[in-house]
């Protein structure tokens, strides 16, 4: 055995991402950066209110604006703020803006449904779950039971690059640029819209400014850009405004979660009832109970062993924009409720919350992670709820998560050029996770070559097939193919060396640190490549082969340390310890960056973000980036990312979603520990914190006294 057929990629890579220079110099070209000659500008005309009818429009005036090519209203009724009523197309941005201003739509507003709590079917009116009797029995047999209701708000994705597409239709072909998590789906959708074959559409998404689950397929932006580019035989650009991003490009649905859980005397959960409600768009949602897609589902129960649970769920239609998958759909909001419920139950059972979790944990790995994390955050110093001294109180909390890791389709291509350059090609897109770097590091370290020899090209439809970047799929689907393709490339060049050296058995030649060696002879990679006497050798693999390895559960455990100013209700997160199982780690930088980013997004969701619909009109009052509050630099805590137990016997697993799941639960339980009572509604804003404190304060106790 002269080379390791096993991969040896594990944390040896800590170089910065491959495209970092392009990104820090402004050279990286995103979809929005394409301004093509003769380009048309188009946009959707949207409904301004939750449930409204267009009573007046000035289409004539809009069409009369110089530079406006067409204005079309397709429907007079809108069901949510942002609902697409028609479109406008113009020669320039200015003409587009002026045309929209001239249109001056006036609406008659009906009675919009804006609040989940008002529109849901009451729990006792919901059809009971099939196993309701079983859960009833478990509750009856329980020594203790507790119930609580939790609420989470609607969160919008706010990818910094808006949804958008630039299409350049050229008769028998088209070149297009789109901001997407799915290169292939976007290309296919465009081909269909343009009535072209799939190969006739050259699609680019080399750089994507974030997605978070809201960017699959060519979407309404691609449809409009394709239609108009074809109609006018000119490039057409459709980029959403920030306001429209909040209104009409997806959201994490709001939820209400009721839980009643019974415990046995030893503190184990026996079972109980869970009812969840999720907010969806005006005509309903997609999947129901488990979360994801366009549905309002909540993944509650999950992670802990709850016993026999009877679960009912209702998707509740509101006059608000439709949900879309958002980073671990259905999960962070579930774990907010679940972790608070776990603490609530632990208190009932007279147990430490950590001890209670260990008792009811379903995963051995996570049990171990809980113990290690507890040590890192200093759990042994945790004070009883609400007992730290002074008006600014401190608390510790905990949250957990996991994620499924199945196989996925992908092909990795490698071209080895005569000058030694190794070109890695993948049609998958790098939406900011560092995919480009991950696949490059897989190939490079597997071959043992210096970074200088490597070029990685991703995000074009004419590159080998890549998966959609959703469900934390990209790395785990592509990495095994990367190893396989690297094996083929090594084999190919080694044959040239074997021939040159007159060696029969290629296995006798080793490739180490970029140098082929056998029997005292050596030849470096670049020199070996010059033996090929042709332009390049091409290799590819669509197979996982021996490199598909037992997946992990992407287990995650987070501990939060918070301070709460009990006089103002303002919360600051001091520190988060985030343990994350990633399977086989590839690049330390990108992994740690993902974990920390997810924690901050979870924090932002827990404390600040909120899509607020005005109850009179159904219009969102904060479709911007100032009143829609997103955690910024000063809100960021110290974060300790821990890559859990590097393991060469498991595959490269998912990372995008799992670390965002535990954070809201960890922070919310820490806040409860600090102030001595739970805030059961997100976001945890000062008004709610103060109200919770007041509900258990001296005045409240006095009021409750007989």
């Amino acid at each position, binding site marked *: 055995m002269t080379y390791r057929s096993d991969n040896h990629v594990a944390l040896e890579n800590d170089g910065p991402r491959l495209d970092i220079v392009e990104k820090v110099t402004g050279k990286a070209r995103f979809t929005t950066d394409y301004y093509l000659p003769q380009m048309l500008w188009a946009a959707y005309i949207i409904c301004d209110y939750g449930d409204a009818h267009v009573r007046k429009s000035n289409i004539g005036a809009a069409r009369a604006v110089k530079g406006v090519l067409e204005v079309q209203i397709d429907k007079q009724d809108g069901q949510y703020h942002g609902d697409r009523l028609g479109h406008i197309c113009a020669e320039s941005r200015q003409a587009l803006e002026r045309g929209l201003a001239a249109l001056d739509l006036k609406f008659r507003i009906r009675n919009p449904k804006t609040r989940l709590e008002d529109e849901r079917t009451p729990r006792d009116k919901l059809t009971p779950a099939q196993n309701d009797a079983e859960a009833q029995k478990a509750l009856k047999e329980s020594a203790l039971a507790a119930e609580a209701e939790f609420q989470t708000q609607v969160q919008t994705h706010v990818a910094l690059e808006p949804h958008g597409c630039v299409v350049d239709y050229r008769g028998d072909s088209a070149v297009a640029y789109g901001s997407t998590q799915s290169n292939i789906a976007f290309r296919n959708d465009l081909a269909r819209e343009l009535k072209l074959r799939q190969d006739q559409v050259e699609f680019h998404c080399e750089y994507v400014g974030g997605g978070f689950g809201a960017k699959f397929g060519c979407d309404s932006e691609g449809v409009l850009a394709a239609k108009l580019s074809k109609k006018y035989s000119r490039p057409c650009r459709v980029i959403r405004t920030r306001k429209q991003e909040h209104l009409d490009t997806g959201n994490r649905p709001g939820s209400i979660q009721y839980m009643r859980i019974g415990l046995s005397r030893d503190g184990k959960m026996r079972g109980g009832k869970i009812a969840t409600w999720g907010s969806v768009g005006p005509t309903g949602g997609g999947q129901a109970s488990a979360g994801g897609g366009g549905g309002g589902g909540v993944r509650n129960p999950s992670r802990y062993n709850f016993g026999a649970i009877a679960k009912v769920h209702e998707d509740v239609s509101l006059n608000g924009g439709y949900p879309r998958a958002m980073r671990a759909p259905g999960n962070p909001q579930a774990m907010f409720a679940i972790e608070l419920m776990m603490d609530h139950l632990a208190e009932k059972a007279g147990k430490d919350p950590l001890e209670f979790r260990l008792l009811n944990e379903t995963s051995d790995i996570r049990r171990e992670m809980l113990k290690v994390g507890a040590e890192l955050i200093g759990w042994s110093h945790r004070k009883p709820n609400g007992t730290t001294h002074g008006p600014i109180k401190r608390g510790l909390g905990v949250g957990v998560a996991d994620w499924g890791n199945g196989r996925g389709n992908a092909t990795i291509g490698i071209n080895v050029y005569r000058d030694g350059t190794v070109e890695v090609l993948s049609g998958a897109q790098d939406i900011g996770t560092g995919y480009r770097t991950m696949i490059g590091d897989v190939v490079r370290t597997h071959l043992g070559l210096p970074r200088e020899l490597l070029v990685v090209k991703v995000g074009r439809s004419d590159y080998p097939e890549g998966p959609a970047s959703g469900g934390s799929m990209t790395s785990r689907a592509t990495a095994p193919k990367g190893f396989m393709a690297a094996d083929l490339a090594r084999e190919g060049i080694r044959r040239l060396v074997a021939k040159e050296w007159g060696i029969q058995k290629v296995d006798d030649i080793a490739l180490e640190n970029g140098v082929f060696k056998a029997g005292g002879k050596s030849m470096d990679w670049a020199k070996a490549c010059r033996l090929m006497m042709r332009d390049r050798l091409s290799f590819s693999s669509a197979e996982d082969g021996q490199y598909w390895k037992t997946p992990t559960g992407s287990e995650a455990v987070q501990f939060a340390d918070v301070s709460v100013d009990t006089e103002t209700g303002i919360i600051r997160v001091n520190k988060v310890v985030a343990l994350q199982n990633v399977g086989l780690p590839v690049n330390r930088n990108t992994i740690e960056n993902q974990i920390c980013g997810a924690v901050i997004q979870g924090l932002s969701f827990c404390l600040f973000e909120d899509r607020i619909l*005005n109850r009179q009109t159904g219009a969102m*009052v904060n479709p911007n980036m100032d009143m829609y509050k997103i955690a910024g630099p*000063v809100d960021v805590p110290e974060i300790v990312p821990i890559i859990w137990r590097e393991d060469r016997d498991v595959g490269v697993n998912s990372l995008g979603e799992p670390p965002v799941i535990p954070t809201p639960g960890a922070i919310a339980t820490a806040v409860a520990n600090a102030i001595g009572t739970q805030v059961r509604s997100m976001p945890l804003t000062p008004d709610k914190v103060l109200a919770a404190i007041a509900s258990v304060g001296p005045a409240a106790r006095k009021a409750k006294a007989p």
Partner: protein
Amino acid sequence: MNSFDYLVAEQFDAAVAEYGRGTAALKAGGIDLLDLMKEGIDSPSTVLSIGELGEFRYIRDENDGVHIGCLTTLADIGRSKLLKIKYPVLHHAAAEAATPQIRERATIAGNLCQRPRCWYFRQREFHCLKKGGATCFAVDGENRYHAIFGGGPSYIVHPSNIAPALVALDAVIHVRSTDKENEPIKAADFFVLPEQSLKTENVLKPGQIISEVVLPQAPTQSATIELREKQSFDWPVTMACVARLDGGWRVCLGSVAPIPWLSRPAMEVLANKDITPELAAAAGEAAVKGADPLADNEYKVQLVKVATKRALLTAAGLEVPRWN
């Protein structure tokens, strides 16, 4: 934005004359006006810029007080050692307002004259009372950030961070127009409640331009406390600015009323006493007198108590709760 003719003043007198014609919207740094124009809330056909009049960008310590030129940016105030040392109440309010980038362009005069940040006012979808409509949507709508003092018929809160500091300092705002070379207006008299005027938030009449702000007297003690949901760029949900002038205390609250809210009940409690923790708390309790919260903003009553108390403690150099 709509299209407009753009006039750029090269002399202040010319700007006053031009503005006096009554045809142009006035612009200094442009932060507020551009925001309104981008949303289509304002669409002037002519815009007059005074932004190039660099000679009106100054902070000068003179015999009759500190003079701050109308085009002095919030960043300039933030950089001023003089203000930092002698007028911490103003320095803090300006240095923490908005974002570092905004502060480079936003001027003191523009900040005082900015329109409300109310989410109904700022969006074209809401034809609210302040825009000539019939409804203040805050009354029955989403009102967590709205006024608890001085509201009705509109419940906006005044958006300026520095206005409460200037009121606390008893600053004087100097105004020029073609009619009057110089009209001094006390900061406390500069802002008007919705019951007096819905179309504007201050006493400026068409054609009047702020030329400078004068701080007649350095406080012996002063401080600003801002309470925000987010610590990065956010508007305070409640602010308290306190200053001690001639021995007596002035307390002005921000983000709780349609104008910077001079809290006379708190000032009466304080009179010209030295601050003790008990007195600061009593002033905080007094400061909420007359509060009339809406459905979702009662928490601001508590915040007013705390902000007032902590501002006084800070000004007096006494201990306030600190983040660990």
